[in-house]
């Protein structure tokens, strides 16, 4: 037995105006789960504590709560000393029990035709991953889109796709999915992160439904315009100034000895819309012994097309990009756009290794820059944090280059998944939430790695939004000046 202290949010809407937190100390067995700790609180301290549990084996989805900020099944998550247990972000019935039934009742139900029909093995294998949902609604609790627009939520989209994939179903699921908010998903993948069954709803349901919408001619006009642009120019954004590729040679040699050689995949935003951070990054590479090879025939990675379901020209883009690097014998390709990086890593089958710029810098080990006399917070790009699992390296470099790093809770800024172009009001509403979070940190600047986030957040905050590479370069320049001064 061991003693643990836990804090639980208590709330009885019939009596309390607002929820409050209470702290309890209980004895639990080694290996006890959160649910065992709740049971013990109820048994020994307060029998009025309300929460749900049924199967105690992670199969019924009754007991999802937030533990230290993240949804988890109370029956599977190990109890830890000091943990804070809150209800899911859904209307609270009392304490940790939330009103999940109305959400469940709205899920699509397959409408099978009358004749019994068996599925083929292939059909079963396609549907199965979408069938594992235990309807715990952890995904609904965390979905950022749901906070600002009318969206049925991640698991509702999973269910739409489950029906759409089933040859027995006789309904038009695509129109229905669009009515329920198919284009509201920013593909931030937060739902996958918290799903106890790790169901890849954005990739296996939302993007696939958008593909079907595309085949049915139901792609949003603004998304279509992007696809037409890519088809015409190989790029997803119009050039507004001299592009990055027009400004750089094919090979950039480092100042000192070569420690590493990488190919650089620049991406459309850094190429055509905001080349400066990419140019700054090249300076950082030079300074740290990294030789950069930049094939000029590279094109859009296809991410804006995959996220919006417009995948017909995708094979062509992939082929061009892969050949651009393989033909030069490059074995490591660096990205500095989180979206391109996630796409090359997850949607491509590349014969080379793909690394984010922070991974490259971490691997090589960089010369420490001078510390800038500012406080900075960091915005996690979804396609870096969850798309590539990169969280620590950017924070590490940021702490190296600013005097004061202030953490900020992670949330999607609203720019991804085609939402910025397709549903600008939603993107702005999510951006506004980010703006408020940034203001709450009191930081002088916001740093991020994704050009989409950077561009989008800048519209919603009066603080400068900077790329990490730019900041590192500023640190080096300060260092040089200080050394010159000495």
């Amino acid at each position, binding site marked *: 037995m061991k003693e643990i202290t836990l804090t639980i949010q208590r709330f009885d809407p019939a009596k309390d105006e607002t929820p409050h937190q209470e702290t309890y100390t209980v004895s*639990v*067995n*080694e*290996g*006890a*789960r959160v649910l*065992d700790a709740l049971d013990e609180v*109820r*048994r020994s301290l307060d*029998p*009025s504590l*309300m929460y*749900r*549990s*049924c*199967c*105690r*084996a*992670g*199969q*019924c*989805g*009754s007991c999802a709560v937030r533990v230290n900020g993240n949804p988890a099944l109370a029956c*599977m998550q190990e109890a830890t000393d000091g943990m804070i247990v809150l209800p899911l972000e859904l209307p609270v019935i009392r304490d940790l*029990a939330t009103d*999940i*039934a109305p959400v*469940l*009742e709205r*899920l699509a*139900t*397959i*409408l*099978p035709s*009358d004749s*019994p*029909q*068996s*599925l*083929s*093995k292939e*059909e*079963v294998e396609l*549907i*199965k991953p979408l*069938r*594992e*949902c*235990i*309807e715990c609604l952890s995904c609904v609790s965390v979905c950022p889109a749901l906070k600002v627009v009318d969206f049925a939520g991640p698991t509702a989209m999973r269910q739409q796709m489950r029906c759409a994939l*089933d040859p*027995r*179903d006789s309904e038009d699921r695509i129109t229905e999915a669009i009515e329920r908010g198919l284009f509201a998903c920013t593909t931030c993948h937060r739902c996958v992160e918290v799903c106890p*069954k790790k169901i890849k709803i954005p990739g296996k349901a939302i993007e696939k439904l958008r593909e079907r919408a595309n085949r049915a001619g139901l792609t949003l006009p603004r998304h279509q315009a992007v696809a037409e642009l890519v088809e015409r120019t190989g790029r997803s954004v119009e050039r507004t100034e001299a592009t990055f590729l027009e400004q750089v040679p094919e090979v950039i040699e480092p100042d000192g000895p070569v420690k590493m050689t990488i190919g650089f995949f620049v991406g459309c935003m850094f190429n055509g819309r905001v080349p400066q951070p990419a140019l700054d990054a090249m300076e950082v590479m030079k300074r740290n012994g990294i030789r950069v090879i930049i094939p000029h025939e590279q094109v859009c990675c296809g991410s804006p097309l995959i996220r919006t379901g417009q995948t017909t020209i995708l094979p062509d883009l992939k082929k061009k990009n892969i050949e651009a690097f393989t033909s030069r014998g490059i074995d490591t390709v660096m990205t500095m756009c989180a979206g391109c990086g996630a796409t090359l890593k997850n949607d491509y089958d590349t014969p080379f290794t793909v690394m984010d710029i922070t991974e490259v810098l971490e691997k090589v080990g960089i010369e420490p820059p001078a510390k800038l006399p500012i406080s900075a917070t960091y915005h996690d790009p979804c396609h870096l944090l969850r798309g590539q699992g990169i969280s620590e390296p950017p924070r590490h470099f940021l702490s190296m280059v600013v005097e004061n790093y202030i953490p900020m809770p992670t949330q999607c800024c609203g720019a991804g998944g085609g939402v910025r172009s397709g549903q600008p009001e939603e993107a702005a509403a999510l951006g506004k939430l980010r703006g408020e979070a940034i203001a709450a940190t009191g930081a002088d600047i916001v740093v991020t790695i994704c050009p989409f986030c950077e561009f989008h957040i800048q519209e919603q905050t009066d603080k400068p939004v900077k790329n990490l590479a730019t900041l590192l370069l500023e640190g080096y320049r300060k260092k040089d000046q200080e050394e010159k001064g000495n």
Partner: protein
Amino acid sequence: MGVITTEDCHVLVIGSGGAGIRAALEAAQYGETILIGKTIAGKGGCTVMAEGGYNAVLREADTITGHLEDTLKGGAYLNDRTLAEVLVNEAPDRMADLIRMGAVFDAEESCMIAQRPFGGQRFPRTCYAGDRTGHEIVMTLLERLRASDVIIRNEITALELATDESRVCGAITSTRDGGIGAIAADAVVLATGGAGQIYDITTNSTAGTGDGYALGFRAGAELIDMEMVQFHPTGAVHPYDARGRLITEAVRGEGGILKNVQGERFMSRYDSQRMELSTRDVVARSIATEVLEGRGTEKGGVWLDVTHLPPEEIEARLPSMLEQYLAFGVDIRKEAMEVAPTAHHMMGGLRITPSCETTVPGLFACGEVAGGVHGANRLGGNALAETQVFGRRAGEAAGRSKEEKREIDPTQIEAVEQRIAAFGAGEMKPSDCVARMKRAMWDGAGIYRTAAALTTTREAILDLAASPLAASSGPEILDAWTAQNMLLVAGMILDGALMRQESRGAHVRSDCAVRWGVEDSPYGHTRISPSYRGIELIGRIA
């Protein structure tokens, strides 16, 4: 407290697991149907937790007779033969229903539903959806339920059945907060599942508290074979709080082997023919014997090993097992699982006809709350089939009931309120009472039983039942009410076990010398009702 809700309907279904939902879907074709359950529909019963599969004869090479014989033999010939026949005859049709409703079972290249071998069966006839078969069935039923006219009342507990001159005419209910209500109905279907929670170590969900046995009994219905408690051979052993968690029979179906601490594949000594895929009663006893005789692990289990299987196969066929064990820090692709028997299924229950009528007019029962289908031991894969076969039958029979007055006698509601009021004067916490009962039942009415231990346990349960329970808030009142239901059911298990002086199927009386093979047993069902208790004698005692 006063009645806060009164409503009426044609059919009231109590219990929202696999059998209850199936019954409600069927009943709704005949008239207004209300489905109540103490959890959110689909989440509470054991169906959603069932992993392994659903037995049905689907292939030319298999036969209905074979399924029947396996079921009767597995049940040590205590089964109600007619019910077993219904089960095996209709299981394929109900599987077809599920497929028609949209279920996604694993399929073979030929589009045939895939089937795996399960214990005690001559043919691989267990249909499955990975190792989440019950979940697949519940999801399918829920989709249909949400699209149906059935009125779903989540988190409503049935406290008592209401009767009108010995006919069941509805139920007196409670919300989570103890708000009393009443639902009048022309017919009531009990589908409340089993009672594993009466034991300290169980696979059952927290809802498996045997309420339906208690409600049916108090309404005058007869129960049979309550002593027949199946101990699943393979439950988790640690961590302590996860003890008893089901390790599906599919692990053995897919080739898992059992070993004692000496590394010996001990099943060869107990059933060299069927080995790990012997019937559950045999495997559970074998494991218990290994542990009792000192060949178990330190924590009192044995090893269940799949590490010889290719990792991909484990990932594809046993994903839930893999995931659950990983959450507890064990990678079953590389390490063996530590397992021991765990209370799993009640073979006994309310006596029913093939139309699911209980012995009380107006009351129907289906699923685990009903007895007789499985005899003295249930085959793995027959319970999910039972939920669908008898769920449909109960729903149909209840639906065909004629319209009644739809009134509930207020004095019966008052009686419930008086019982609740008495909790105000009690002293023992319901949770303490339940903890003591679970321990006593595990120690005294487990796999090996003797008259002496059963009698001591019976006295302990009577003592607990005589100690007034304390409860003030709504949720505590439900706890106390449930505890009293559990004590009543524990008593039935003990009484049945004392009456049955033979070893048969899951019931082993180590103090009784048995002079007959199970096929020739002179005993029939044990019977318990408010007015009678005894064991049927169907032959001459040798």
